[in-house]
């Protein structure tokens, strides 16, 4: 554990710095004195997005799930920017990607792949971002890395709170 902490470029430190920066930004933007539920909810959403974003950017597209997450966040931010044309583009792109991944998935299952555990993999695919487009091998890899990053995130948030 300790070498990771001392490593300045480790996942933990990268995530921490980004997350802190995001949190300070949020705090600076919305100095909240009251604790009304709606505001707290807003902040919660923002913080959650910030956490996800900082994690996804810390991983830096080396992993499929981080790429998928970044894409999701980006499309969400574009949607919030409420540009209709951009929205159309993103949705068409997304549809194209989904079609392609569905096709990939079909082709993979028809190549005589052993489907010993079909139902659970679907559940896993839903959980892990970007998991729809991967075969079981890669899905397991991505899951392992995703679990590792989630635990990092939770630890850091624990410390932060």
């Amino acid at each position: 554990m300790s070498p990771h902490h001392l490593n300045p470029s480790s996942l933990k430190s990268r995530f921490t710095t980004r997350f802190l920066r995001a949190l300070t930004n949020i705090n600076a933007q919305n100095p909240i004195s009251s604790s009304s539920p709606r505001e707290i909810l807003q902040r919660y959403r923002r913080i959650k997005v910030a956490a996800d974003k900082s994690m996804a950017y810390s991983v830096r597209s080396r992993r499929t799930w981080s790429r998928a997450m970044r894409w999701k966040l980006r499309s969400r931010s574009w949607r919030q920017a409420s540009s209709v044309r951009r929205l159309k583009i993103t949705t068409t792109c997304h549809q194209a990607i989904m079609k392609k991944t569905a096709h990939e998935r079909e082709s993979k299952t028809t190549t005589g792949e052993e489907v010993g555990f079909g139902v659970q993999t679907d559940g896993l695919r839903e959980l892990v971002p970007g998991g729809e487009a991967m075969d079981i091998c890669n899905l397991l890899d991505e899951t392992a890395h995703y679990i590792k990053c989630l635990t990092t995130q939770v630890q850091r948030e624990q410390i932060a709170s």
Partner: protein
Amino acid sequence: MLRGLHSLETCTYNGMDMTVLERQQARLKWQQQQNYGVQNNNPIELCASSVPQIQGFLGSSFGSGQLVEMKKPEVYLGSDDFPKFVNLSVAGPEFSASKMDLVPPEAAADYCISRTSSCQMTAFQTAVMNEEREDVILKKMESTTGRESFNKRKVEAVQDDKCKDKRIKGEVEGESEVKTKCSTEVSRNSSKGNSKASEVQKPDYIHVRARRGQATDSHSLAERARREKISKKMKCLQDLVPGCNKITGKAGMLDEIINYVQSLQRQVEFLSMKLAAVNPSVEFNVDNLPAKEFPAYVANFPAAAKSPAMANLACLQFNPLQKAVSCMLDATGHPPQTATEGVASASISIPEQALSSSCITQLQPFSTWNTDPQGLYNVYNMGFH
């Protein structure tokens, strides 16, 4: 040559079963006496050129204990390694050569022959190839330093004794075989003989052997290689997810993994909710979050625990906080326990650790199910639904 061989033995097989090696040597000598080597000039050239590569590889292979990414499974059945086996004939005691022949990637690329053109292979080569199985086993020792391979190898060593006779019989059969039928003969031999699946470090393709009594067509071999990959990854995941040691079977493991990922995601949400709520009341101090000071976490914990919002939030929900506690347990370096199972385990494990008392005080409020302020609870519910 013998000197090289002995050095190889000492450095390669530290703590390994030496009797296998000796047996193989004896068998090799016996074979050589029976039929002296193949008479192609090419193999000799191959041998000559591959020896330096082999020795070069010897040095490099011992350091690497890692698996190479598999790109494409290829049926091992004698398609590409025949010239390397021939090397064995030319330099009999060069036992190392036979082993290393599987490995040098440059040599492999040059020397690969397609299955149809394996006409050059003679009976001796088939016989020699049967030797390779044990070599492959030993080779696997170097490429994968996992415990499984050790156990497999030991099992194989035991079985080798019994199957030696069968193999010799198979070799005799192979000797009389005609060239064009080489591949099928080899496949028969490999299925008869006590071969095992092995993975060789190669940039282009993987060599997989058929196990005893199993189908040897390329599809099933490829599938078997895939399955082994998947099971290896499942084992890695088992190490990651706490509390999975007792569960056997892929389905249960996957369920457990799914639950764990869900709980982690919920934890993240819960913590970000906590941050959203806590921030206004507690001054958000950047210095509290050292990226590099692990002990600071324990020091900060009492400070964090004293904040009133913390105590309130501690009562919000049982499970996520329990998971959060389990996460904290992990964070303090405690080996991951089955903390996902019940509070009892969590509360018991806490005293075992050198956690501050504030942690225990935090646990007690939520274990007694105190009511929490309405606002926060409503917000939490809104956030979840």
